[in-house]
């Protein structure tokens, strides 16, 4: 039997496989390099980068919940210059694609980061208009279709790389936002970001998170994510990077069957530093089990 090929092409970029890392869960890959061979990943999607350094929210920034976790890190990052100087050279040592997630408080700030990265060795840009943890961290752009279209169009003017728009699930109708991003010129959509949530310490009678609310991730949100990928895949022509609670290869295959071209592993990395590789091997196993040769044989192919 011929070994299945997991190669995919998204917006003209070739990926050796569909396994990516979800922004914010993998840093720039440095810490995970001790556990996984980064060369084996389809892409490393780095933590959100803004034009200047952001300090993030006070601690506690994490709360564990049933089958998931809440975080309120607040996009702490060293700023784009520091990122370009330290992290791009690090990632260039590996044979994997580099996707940079960009954050901003204003349209101008998003554009400035996109422009700064346009001449760097970056394969794609992911526009974060969906972080729930920073008031200005983009979510106001991600929950209003006119704003989503506007910011996508503006950022698109400054990027040379294909542009991914990352969607928030904290909306009434995600399809409407997806269509707006498509109309604004997005090349790819990624979904979902975290769901806004809250946990309370009943003994202290206080919210667990210093920020009061945070973003829920992990297996608890997977059915919501699969549903949203399915809906969006049927409504837009753009390729989709699906994510939300992927722990195993089987979870990833669900997203592919729902219509995603690639998938990202996020919270699972915290439970298992080798989660990305385990997911990849699980996907290969499924392909072999049913004798599929290429990803397109199963993408969106629900019976």
């Amino acid at each position, binding site marked *: 039997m011929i070994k299945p090929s997991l190669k995919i092409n998204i917006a003209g970029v070739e990926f050796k496989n569909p396994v990516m890392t979800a922004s914010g869960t*993998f840093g720039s890959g440095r810490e995970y390099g001790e556990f996984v061979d980064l060369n084996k990943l389809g892409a490393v999607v780095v933590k959100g980068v803004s034009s200047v350094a952001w*300090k*993030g929210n006070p*601690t506690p*920034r994490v709360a564990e919940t049933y*089958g998931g*976790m809440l975080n309120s890190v607040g996009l702490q990052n060293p700023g784009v210059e520091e990122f370009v100087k330290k992290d791009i050279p690090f990632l260039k040592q590996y044979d994997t694609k580099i996707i940079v997630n960009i954050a901003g408080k204003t349209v101008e700030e998003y554009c400035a980061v996109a422009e700064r990265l346009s001449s760097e060795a970056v394969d794609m840009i992911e526009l974060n208009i969906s972080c729930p943890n920073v008031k200005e961290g983009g979510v106001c752009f991600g929950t209003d279709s006119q704003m989503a279209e506007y910011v996508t169009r503006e950022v698109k003017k400054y990027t040379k790389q294909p542009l991914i728009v990352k969607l928030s699930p904290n909306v009434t109708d995600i399809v409407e936002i997806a269509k707006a991003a498509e109309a604004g010129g997005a090349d790819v959509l990624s979904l979902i970001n975290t769901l806004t949530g809250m946990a309370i310490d009943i003994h202290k009678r206080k919210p667990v998170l210093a920020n009061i609310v945070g973003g829920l991730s992990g297996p608890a949100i997977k059915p919501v994510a699969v549903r949203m990928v399915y809906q969006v895949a049927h409504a837009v022509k753009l390729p989709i990077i699906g994510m939300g609670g992927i722990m195993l290869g089987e979870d990833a295959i669900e997203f592919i069957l729902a219509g995603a071209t690639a998938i990202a592993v996020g*919270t699972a990395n*915290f439970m298992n*530093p080798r989660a990305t590789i385990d997911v990849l091997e699980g996907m290969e196993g499924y392909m072999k089990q049913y004798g599929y040769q290429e990803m397109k044989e199963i993408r969106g192919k629900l019976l």
Partner: protein
Amino acid sequence: MKTMVKASIIKNLEIAPGIYEMILLSKELVETGFPGKFVNLYIEDGQHLLPRPISICETDKNQQTLRLIYAVIGKGTKKLSIMKEKEEIKVLGSLGNGFSVGRGNGKNIVIGGGIGVPPLLELVKQLEGSKTVYLGFRCNPILVEDFKKYADEVYVATEDGSEGYKGNVLELMEQHQAKGDMLYSCGPKPMLKAVADWAKENNIDGELSLEERMACGIGACLVCTCKTAEKEGEDWEYKRVCKDGPVFSRDEVIWG
């Protein structure tokens, strides 16, 4: 080097109300289990996703065992506490930066509070020179006899006066006119702040081990940050307790 292992549980028993001792068999973890470092314990029940970071209390190279002392503070540690002997547990370690043994001139003061006491045991074992240990507890002191094996002097305080001096560890130190040229401490934040202030007043160098809620434990998720001094042009910056710490220099931490 960090390694993920399946370690078998040799012992997992309650040694004081709500405080458990777990002994794990693992050659790999013992080799890197320096004082002040910690391990991640994975519960793997599908509900508790995040690892529990637990400090290393003691390592035994001959037996190839790792001794952990932990408090049951929630559902996850409750699950840990009911694990049985001979069961296997997934462990990642050793993590973080530990204490630097031998930083002073040989007159060491070691100060522990509550569940911050265990990681100081391996430290006291490895320190050279004189070692004076001050331990504070709310009630029910732990590990006192173990410390006596390796320290020159061990003083104990309990808040309820059930054992040793009645009061807190700072008062205990005052009573014994604590002196030295290097200080090591681990315990609750208010205690650490008081210890840091005391060390500053007395011009004693020191290292403090901090605790914070963590997710990954390896420095990627930026969940467990603490405010620290320095960095050009900035008043302070966030450092990662799991990766840059948990041990910090006493003058590095900014107490919020």
